[in-house]
């Protein structure tokens, strides 16, 4: 009773990290580094770094938020490493600018020429994470079957064999998963659009 106020809101449960967060962290990473192998390694590093600094976890943030904050640092480190390998990133500038354009020249020089696609990319990145979020709210079995069928594109027959269920079981599970996901995305995606 006397320790009530010091009980942290959130606790770490590393044995469940892979099942609960690995795919979420993986998608988060892959949209930022664009390389499967590197993304896998960064997720792995994040889990290990999390274990190493588990004692620093104060329980104020949710487990996933805490892991994401570690992952962000890992991603930044990754880019630092690449940049130091390549030599510093260089922006070549023509300094003979027109006085009227003062203030805007630097932005023009460093503007990302792929900017037209950037909005779409950001949109897809967020959509991916919104779907992942909704997937974590499903019962484990439903999420597993839905991912195998929809995201990995496995055949009905193969899933049934692997999970030892009948085809009609599978369709009932798929139906429940889809209904929940539709509702979840309705609240978390369409409303934020």
């Amino acid at each position: 009773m006397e320790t009530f106020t010091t009980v942290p809101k959130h606790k770490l449960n590393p044995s469940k990290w892979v099942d609960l967060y690995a795919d979420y962290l993986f998608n988060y990473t892959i949209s930022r580094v664009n390389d499967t192998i590197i993304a896998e390694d960064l997720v792995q590093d994040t889990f290990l770094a999390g274990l190493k600094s588990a004692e620093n976890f104060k329980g104020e943030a949710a487990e996933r938020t805490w892991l994401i904050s570690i992952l962000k640092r890992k991603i930044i480190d990754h880019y630092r490493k690449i940049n130091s390998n390549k030599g510093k990133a260089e922006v070549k500038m023509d300094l003979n600018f027109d006085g009227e354009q003062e203030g805007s020249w630097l932005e023009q020089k460093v503007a990302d020429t792929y900017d037209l696609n950037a909005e779409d990319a950001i949109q897809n990145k967020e959509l991916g994470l919104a779907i992942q979020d909704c997937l974590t709210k499903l019962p484990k079995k439903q999420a597993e079957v839905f991912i195998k069928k929809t995201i990995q594109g496995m055949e009905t027959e193969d899933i049934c064999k692997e999970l030892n269920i009948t085809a009609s079981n599978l369709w009932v599970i798929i139906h429940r998963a889809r209904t929940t996901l539709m509702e979840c995305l309705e609240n978390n995606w369409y409303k934020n659009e």
Partner: protein
Amino acid sequence: MSKKKNTLLVSCEQAKHICDKMQYGEATLLERLKLRFRIMWCKATKSYSKKNSDLTQLCKEAKIKTLDKEKKVEMKRKIDGFS
């Protein structure tokens, strides 16, 4: 006439089931016809069908990836081995 109608008539639940299968290209031509037929007059089926196609579309657009099963096993092993 009425006989033909009966073969096309499915319940709302059956229509939803066909609609689910359709998202994965696993509904037969006859099933698709049955679904179309029901959508003509059943608002619940129509709304389900619309949301269901949207979900399929969103999943495609999002390009979600999952980690290999082996990779996950390896990660679990490393985490368990840490302590």
